[in-house]
Every structure is written in structure tokens, then in C-alpha cells.
């Protein structure tokens, strides 16, 4: 098992190195992408800090807590974009038949589809984002303890598991039908709803974001635990949803792979 993990780790490192070199081929464009992503992060923070100055509370949360919700959204979103960028191009590979080549290789096709194209721009953003986040957290009046950090760490991992599951669902749907290039962008927009605590939305949306597309379990619950706020859903429910969703996404992938017709080859 460890040998196999090491094998996949070496392959991923090779892909990451290739992606890193490709980034430096198109330096200008990638610099613009990096600036744009920093600008988006900065402008979101400016808006939240403006809210912080002008309102006392937001739903049942303080405005300082609201900023923490956004930071956690940013971390989880950034990580999943760094690693799962290949998902954005997968529909094209299915349509033109290039996915056939991945099926012939002695590595798991899901691993290739999911993690084959890491986004170096987002990897480069991780350090500045963490630095800015720590600086912001240093002046916010929030209750974070060692226990809450530990609880958060477990739930953040669960959140990453959910993010992985959602990306696998997008990949599976790309195999089943070619008419859904927007699906991964829909996921991005749904996860963007998690910039704010999902408990603020109306009942139907809130339920959907906790149980159908569990963005709430991915972002809101870890944030609540980090802030020592009573979580909106029980922690065991969050973990069951995380594990269950991941298992279901793998089953969906296996099912859809059997229906791959290699249409363009």
C-alpha cells in the first residue's frame, strides 16, 4: 500500500514539475492570472472589512466571524483548485477521445483525470493567502482555542474529501453526457455561496447546501467549530455526509466509466 502511494506521489510530482515549467513558458499570462486572483481575494476582503466597519452583526454571527467564514472558503477553494484543475479540461478529453490514452496507462484513470493538471498559479497563491489570513486573524475578536483548531483540522479534511467527491461527480457527468461543460463552473458558483455562512439562506437553499451539494458541511461547519460556535449540524452527521458522499462519488465514477463509449476515437 505504502509502495503504491509512493508510486502515485512520484507521478504527481512529475506532473506538478511539468505544470510548473509550463507556467514559466507563458510567464505574462500566468502573471496576469495571479494578479487577477490576488485582486479577487483583496476585493472580497475589502467588502467584508467595509461590512465589519458598518454593521454590528450578520445573522447570528459577529462581523469578525463573518470574515473567518470567508477565509475558510478561500483556503478550501484554493486547495481544490490547485489540485483539481484537470477537471476543467476533462470534458474536452472525453469529446475528442484523448481520454482513451489515459485508460491505457498503468495508473488509475480517476487519478489522472482528477489530479493530472495541478494549477501552479493557485499553488503560488497558497502562501500569500495563508500569510494574509494569519495577519487578519491576529486583529479579529474571535474565540479560537487549541481544541477548536484540532476539531477544525478534522472537519477541514472532511471538507476536502467533500470537495474531492464533488469534483469526481463532475468528471463522471462529463463521461455520461457531453452537454455539460458548465457543470464545474456551477460547482464553483455553488461553493461561492459558502463565502457566507450557508445558514443565512432560505430553508430550501440551506437544506440543499447542507445535504444535496454539501457546501455547508465543507465550509460552514468547519468554520463554526474553529470559532467555538455550536455547529449548525451535528459533527457526526458532517463526517457521515463527507464519507458517504465520497463513497457515492466513487461508485458514480465506476458506473459512468462502464458507459464510456470512446465516441471520437
Amino acid at each position, binding site marked *: 500500500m505504502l509502495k503504491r502511494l509512493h508510486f502515485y506521489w512520484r507521478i504527481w510530482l512529475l506532473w506538478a514539475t511539468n505544470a510548473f515549467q509550463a507556467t514559466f513558458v*507563458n510567464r*505574462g*499570462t*500566468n*502573471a*496576469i*492570472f495571479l*494578479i*487577477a*486572483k490576488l*485582486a*479577487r481575494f483583496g*476585493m*472580497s476582503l*475589502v*467588502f467584508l472589512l*467595509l*461590512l465589519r466597519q*458598518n*454593521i*454590528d*452583526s*450578520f*445573522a447570528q454571527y459577529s462581523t469578525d466571524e463573518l470574515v473567518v467564514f470567508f477565509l475558510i472558503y478561500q483556503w478550501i477553494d484554493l486547495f481544490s483548485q490547485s489540485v483539481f484543475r484537470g477537471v476543467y479540461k476533462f470534458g474536452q478529453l472525453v469529446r475528442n477521445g484523448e481520454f482513451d490514452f489515459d485508460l491505457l496507462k498503468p495508473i488509475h484513470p480517476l487519478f489522472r483525470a482528477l489530479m493530472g493538471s495541478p494549477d501552479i498559479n493557485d499553488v503560488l497563491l497558497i502562501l500569500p493567502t495563508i500569510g494574509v489570513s494569519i495577519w487578519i486573524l491576529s486583529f479579529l475578536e474571535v474565540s479560537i482555542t487549541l481544541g477548536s483548531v484540532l476539531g477544525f483540522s478534522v472537519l477541514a479534511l472532511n471538507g476536502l474529501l467533500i470537495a474531492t467527491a464533488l469534483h469526481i461527480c463532475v468528471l463522471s457527468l462529463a463521461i455520461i*453526457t457531453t*452537454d*455539460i*461543460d*458548465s*457543470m464545474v*463552473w*456551477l460547482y464553483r*458558483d*455553488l461553493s*461561492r*455561496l459558502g*463565502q*457566507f455562512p450557508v445558514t*443565512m*439562506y*432560505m430553508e430550501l*437553499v440551506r437544506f440543499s447546501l447542507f445535504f444535496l451539494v454539501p457546501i455547508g458541511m465543507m465550509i460552514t461547519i468547519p468554520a463554526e467549530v474553529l470559532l467555538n460556535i455550536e455547529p449548525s449540524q451535528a459533527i457526526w452527521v458532517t463526517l457521515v455526509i463527507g464519507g458517504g458522499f465520497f463513497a457515492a462519488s466513487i461508485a458514480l465514477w465506476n458506473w459512468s466509466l462502464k458507459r464510456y463509449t470512446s465516441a471520437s476515437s
Partner: protein
Amino acid sequence: MSKYIQLFSLYWQNGLVYRTNLILWRFRQFLSALMALTVWSVVFTGQEQVFGYDTGGMIAYVFIASFLQSLVLATALHGLAQRVYSGEVSMLLTKPINFFGTLAIEDLADKSRNILFIFVEMGLLYLLFMPTIPLPGLQTWLIFGLLASMGAVLHFIISLLFGTLGFFSPETWGPKFLFFVIVDFTAGKLFPLDILPEVVQKILFLTPFPYFSFVQTQVFLEKYTQPELLNHILVLAGWLIGLSVLNSWLWKKGMREYTAAGH
């Protein structure tokens, strides 16, 4: 004229080939408006006045800005630079039709398709949030219509400008992505620009971004005096003329370098 009507019909049908994508795209716009309206509804549950707006004023602002952005920023020309770089535009250039006229028809067909969805989405959002939207007089409606149309033309010209990138580089998505990010915040969908510090507003008004929907929304809500209105109309007209001249120059320059790669 009839050939352009035929083109309109073709582009309209072409956009309906991938119907799921179209529906998902509209659903994404709906989600974005839903988030903005929910955020402000929650903000105003705790206080009556924030940033000089009351609940009704802010919800009406976000509602109208969402409607306008869906209309003004909808375009079929996102991939124009790629079409130029790949040589795909050669097919248009060799036909006995006006090149920019054809692109305008393509854009118009896209906007018309979106309009159908916009009314459904707005109806749904109206039922969910029940905003009290003060309806202005006829004169304001006319000015609003004029500025909204000018905003759509402004976005069309900027889309053409991004298309010229394809003449000079295969890497066309970086600048466009930066533009999307800036528009996302500065066109005023999530929040009105007048909540920002004075100095930031002044800088933003040196750019075309507030003229995509913020200014039009303020006109609809009758926030401007007559001289301010005239000033905004003149500035927007200035942007249209200036960018049209730049666009024309860049396309001519690009066409001289165009090699119809791959064709």
C-alpha cells in the same frame, strides 16, 4: 437586411444546441443574484440604515443591477480572440457580409436568448424577496433605456477589443480573466459602488466599469440630478467613441498581421 435576419435566426438556434449548458449558465447567474439579495436582506435584519441605504433601497438596487448585468454583460464573443488566433474568423471575412455587423448580430442573438431566462429568474427572485421597486417617470425610463443600450454597446466594443489580442498572441485568457474579476466587483452587482471610500469611487469613475450597470441603476432609482445625468451620458458617449476608435485602429493593425493560421 434579410441576410442579417437569417444570421440572427441561425445564431439563435446555434445557442440552443447545448441547451443544458445554457440552462446551467442562467442558473449560475440566478445563484449570484440570490447570494447578493440574501446578503443584503440579512444585513438589514439587524439595522435600518447601512451605507446610507435602507432595506428597500438596497434590495431594489441589487435587483435592478442583477437584471441589467444579465443583459449588458451577456455576450457570445468570449472566445473571439481564440477564433482570431486559430484562423476561424477567415470564414466570416471571406463572406459578403459586414464582419462587425455579423458579430453584433451574434451578440444580439445571445442577449435575446438570455432575456427570456432573465424574466423568469427575476420573476422568481421577485417572489422570493418581494422588493419594493419605485417605478420612475417616462423621462427616466427613456434615459435608463438609452444608458442601458449604451452600456451594452460599450461591453460589445470591449469584447471586440479583447478579440484583437488573438492577432498578437495565443495567450488570450489572462487579460480577459482579469477583466471578469474586476467587472465582478466594480460593476456593482454585489454592492453599490457608493459604499466604497470616496477615493476608490473617484478612481473607478475614471474607468468604464461603473457604466455597465451601476450608473444605469442609479438613474432608474432617480439618484442623479439633471447635470449629473448629462455628465454621465457624455462620459459614457466619450468612452464609446474613444474605444471605437481604438478598436478600429487595432483591428486594422491586426488584419495587416493576420495569417489565417491553420486555414
